[in-house]
Structures are given as C-alpha cells and as structure tokens.
C-alpha cells in the first residue's frame, strides 16, 4: 500500500515537472521578450532590465529560478490584460467562479448519470435501454460548444426566451442552469454508460442470484444490492471528469460570459499574455494531476478487493 502510494505520488510529481518544463520551454520559443512594447527601450536599458529579471542567464538557470518562484507560489505578473497584477491574485480571484460552475456541473452529472445508468440496466434490452444508449452516445460525442449553442438558441432567445444567456458576476441561481447543463452533459452520459455496464456486471454475480432466490424484488435488487457495488468503477471516472470539466470550462465560460478562469485563459491566449497563459496552464495542470491522484488513491480505499501489489504489473 505504502509502496503504491509512494509510486503514485512520485509519478504525479514527475508529471508536474514535465508540465512545467514543457510550459517553460514553449514559452521561451516565443520570440520577443516581455519588455518589447510599442516604445522599444534602448539597448542599454534592455540589458539592464534583462539583468534585473535574470533573463541574461542561460535557459536552464532561468528554468531553475522560475521553478523556485513557482515553489513560492509566484507565477509572475500579467503584462497585458491587467498590467503588472500578479498572476496568483488573478487566479485566486477567478478560480472560485470556475470551481462553482464545475462543482454544480459535476453534481448534476453524477446524480443523473447514475440514475439513467440504473434505469437502463433495469430495463436492459428493452426500448428504454436502447433509447438511453443512443442518447448517451450522442451526448458523449457532442462537443461542448455545439451543446452550448443549441441550448442558447433554444432557451435564451432563438425559440423560447426563458433563461439568461449571460452569466455575470452577480447572476441569479437560474442563470447557472444552462452552463452547468452544458458542462455536465458529456460526463453525465459517460457516467450513465459506466453505471449501466458495471451494473450489468454486478447483476451477474452470485450474491445477486442469492438475493433473487430469497425473494427480493427486482427493483430492490438493482437499487440496493447491485448499485452499491456497481458504483465503485464509477468513482474512478471522477479523475478524468475533472480534466474534462476543466477544459469544457474554457468553452462554456466563453460562450456564457462567466467571469471564471477558463474564459480568462482563452482571452489571455488571444491577447498573447504569456505569463497568464503559463501560470494558468501550470495551475490547472497541477489541479488535474492532484485530483486524479487523489481519486485513484481514494478508489483503492473504497474497493479493498483491488490488490495493490498486483497494480505494479
């Protein structure tokens, strides 16, 4: 167990290093330093500035310094969108908004995903099962921006105008319905599919036959006996789902004008504000890696049948 934990944590740290290295060296691919604005400074001033910020040192020293700053929680300052504001402050300000939308989306995805998965398993082979299968397949392949636009056209203007299309800073609760639905749709369909298949696996087990044999009703077998065990594989999906919701957030927040980190990231891309792009990438990547790690470890605790020693194979 401890060996496994150590291994996973080590892999996570290595992945973080890989992300930071990719980010750093890609950033240095970009021509033009941070001091090249409309008023180009003289060569002497430029040299002075570069000396001050350590840009005259070789790249690997710069990378070391950058890592050191990173370890102190310093992502540098924005040089275009919010001039000279530290990226950390911007992230602190924007991330909670994204987190809120993401958590709402996750909650609805998990609840409805499990319910639909159970319904499909309950009616296995029937019409409801087939319909749900088509719908969930469609939901999985639907790109977020297509979902968002369809919903906007349907509910925010084109057909019915019942929900706001823009979620501002002080939006009412119902303004979050469309973005959360959009964000959660694909994970919801995935969860429904996972639940259905792991439910059918669970239904083939001996203890289910025992339950039927002692006269427990079909409904009770599915929702009580099978569901508890069928949910375990679903937990392992939460890791990838975090990553999905995060990247889905770029589109959703842009389309619905949610003042979160995802929209800000997209804006910083079109504005070429490199410190923000970098800082956000490293921050979000770290978030996803830590979440995946946490979920994987949690998964091993939930299901003691999983042999950790065998995981090394």
């Amino acid at each position, binding site marked *: 167990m401890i060996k496994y934990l150590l291994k996973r944590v080590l*892999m*996570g740290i*290595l*992945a973080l290093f*890989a*992300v930071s290295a*990719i*980010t750093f060296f*890609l*950033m240095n*691919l*970009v*021509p*033009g330093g941070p001091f090249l604005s409309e008023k180009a400074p003289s060569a002497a001033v430029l040299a002075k500035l570069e000396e001050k910020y350590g840009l005259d040192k070789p790249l690997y020293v710069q990378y070391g310094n950058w890592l050191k700053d990173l370890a102190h929680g310093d992502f540098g300052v924005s040089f275009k969108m919010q001039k000279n504001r530290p990226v950390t402050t911007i992230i602190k300000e924007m991330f909670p908004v994204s987190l809120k939308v993401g958590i709402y989306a996750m909650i609805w995805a998990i609840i409805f995903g499990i319910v639909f998965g159970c319904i499909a398993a309950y009616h296995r082979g029937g019409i409801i099962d087939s319909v749900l299968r088509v719908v969930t*397949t*469609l939901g*999985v*392949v*639907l*790109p*977020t*921006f*297509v979902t968002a*636009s*369809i919903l*906007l*056209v349907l509910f925010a*203007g*084109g057909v019915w105008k019942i929900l706001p299309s823009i979620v501002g800073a002080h939006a009412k609760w119902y303004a979050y319905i469309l973005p959360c639905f959009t964000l959660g749709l694909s994970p919801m369909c995935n969860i429904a599919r996972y639940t259905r298949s792991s439910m059918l696996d669970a239904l083939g087990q001996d203890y289910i036959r025992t339950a039927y044999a002692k006269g427990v009703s079909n409904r009770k077998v599915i929702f009580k006996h099978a569901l508890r065990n069928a949910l375990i594989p679903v937990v392992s999906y939460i890791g990838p789902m975090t*990553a999905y919701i*995060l*990247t889905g957030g*770029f*589109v959703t927040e*842009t*389309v619905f004008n949610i003042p979160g980190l995802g929209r800000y*990231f*997209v804006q910083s*891309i*079109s504005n*070429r504000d*490199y410190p923000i*792009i*970098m800082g956000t*990438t490293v921050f*979000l*990547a770290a978030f*996803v*890696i830590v979440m*995946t790690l946490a979920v994987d470890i949690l998964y091993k605790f939930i299901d003691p049948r999983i042999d950790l020693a065998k995981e090394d194979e």
Partner: protein
Amino acid sequence: MPKRLKIPSLRLSDEKVAQLIDIGTLTVQDFAPAPQDDKEDFIPKAKSMGYWQDAWRRLRRNRVSMVALVVILLIIIFAFAGPKFVPYKYQEQYRSSLNLAPMEYSASEQARIDAGEKVFPHVFGTDTHGRDIMARTMVGARVSLAIGVLAAILVLIIGSIYGAVSGLVGGLTDAVMMRILEIIASIPDVLVVLLLSVSIKPRLEAFVNSFGASNKNAFARGLSVLGPSITAIFICFAILYWITMARIIRGQVLQLKNQEFVTAARALGASQWRIIRKHLLPNCIGSMIAATCLQIPSAIFLESFLSFLGVGVQAPLTSLGSMCSDALGGMYTYTYRLVIPAAILLVLLLSFNLFGDGLRDALDPRLKK
C-alpha cells in the same frame, strides 16, 4: 466380423449401440474405406474465409456500423467532390449577396432568373461577407476530415513503434518506457495543446517566412499551406496522443510474443525481423486499424475545439469548428449558420465513433463480450 462395436467417444451402453446399428445387417462394405465423394461430403460446403473476408462479414452484419460507414462516405463525397458542382468559391465574397437565408436569391440573381438565366442557389445561404455557406461547409468538412485522418496516421506510426519496441524488448527498457508513458498520460492534454498552438505559432511563421517568397523548399511550402495552427495540432498529436495506441500495441505484442507459434518460429531459426513481419504484425493489424479509426474523431474534435477558441485554422481557410465560432455572433438572427456546420460536425463525430466501434468488434472479435 466383430460381435461388438465399440464407440469410445460416445460411451454408449451395448444395448444402445445395438439399437442404433442393426448389427445383423452390417456387411463387409460398411467397413471399407470411404470413397472420395463420400469424404468430400464431410468437408463443409461453405467457402473458406480469410481474415479480412471474415471481418467484413462481421462488419456487414452490424447494421449501425454500416449506416455510419455510408454516412461517412456521403460526407467524404460532399467534402471532396462537392466543390466541383458548386459554382461558388469558399473564400470569395459575393458583394451583391450578403446575409442570404438558405435558398434565397439576391436581387441581382433574382433579376437574372427573371431574365431566364439559370442561377445556382445558395443552398445554405451566405454569410455577412457574402460567402457561400455551402461551399464553406464543404471546405470546412474537408479540412476537418484531412486533419482527422492525418493526425490518426501520425498517432498510428508513433504509437505502434513505441508500443512495439516496449513490448518486444521488455525488461528494464519496457519498465522505463511505460513510466514515461504514464507521466505523459497524466498531463492534461488540452492545456498543453492550447499552450503549444499559441507559442509555436510565431516560430513557425518566422520559419516559413525565412525562406522568402520564391525559394521555399517542399517542407516550408507544406507548412505554409497547413498554416501554423494545424501544424501545432499535429505536433500536439505527435507528442501527447499516441499513448493509447502504444498501450494497445504493447499489450498485443506482449500477449503474442510468448505464444506457441512464435516460439515455434523462433525455434525454427526465424529472425526477429521475420517474426515481427510474419507473425506479430498480421495479428496486430486488426486492432491497429480499429484504434486508428477511433483516433480520427478525437482529432476532429480537438481541431474543432481549438478552432472554436480561435487558435485553429486561419482565415481564409475554414473548418467546421471555426464556422461554428464565426456564427456565434449572429446566433439568434442567423441560426442556420451555426446549425449547419454544427450538425455536420456532430454527424461526422458520431458516425466515426460508431463505425470505429463496429470495426473494432469486427477486426478483433476476441475483445467483444
């Protein structure tokens, strides 16, 4: 003449045997070797089938996959042959026909129709710049398809080489290669893709321009046709997306290389290269094709995602994703501009996924439960 017939495989009692075969009527002829045509009767009449025929038969039985295949073919025809039949160019702006609804004619075109001329309709309408949306959709679908297929081939090459080396060499090499793969797998791909397509763009532009307008070599010309963003997408796929393929191939190779027929080939003195070519590759090819096919929609998806965020293909070239992105502004007034490319994109993604699933089941029936 034997008194008792012994049929060991059936383990019947003597009475049963006596019931089944009337011993009294047996003659010597019954024990003679069977003539040739009797023997041939035992061989099943069905034609023997090769692997590909068998896979094709299985695929044909899968109705969903066949429908998906037909849809994919239709979209390919639409994207590649379509522009031949539409008289409008995707990048050309027809000043007199701005913002037309589907099948609507502009005033000047209406006048020409009234004069008895035949005018090709703008089937999907035109956009704010007067560009024909159908022509643009065709080119967009073509770009999306081309990116999907090329990226999938790239993934196939890198992933299968990595996976095959890892599986064949084994030992420490395998362990190290798999750890590297795990690290890459835990990197959130979309973030890196976005970062890469942003930061690589100026470099590539500078590289292409460094050759000057006249003396570009083939590589630089190719890059300038693709545009920096599409090149960045390919680089991303080459760096990050081959892991699934590598895992599949490694698993297959590990499973195959210890099987008896490979051991037998090795014992007969076959070289490593011959074993790869004659024994491992033919057994892997099915899952390789299926995995490649499933990679296509993921590439199309990624491209449309990037184009939607504005870092995908560059104007005047278009793709389904960037058409959706362009249409977002006038979404409520000109809904069809959004719906048409979005619907084609959706159908394309769905059919590739369904077809890929069917193909995997057909080519690798062992996987199917």
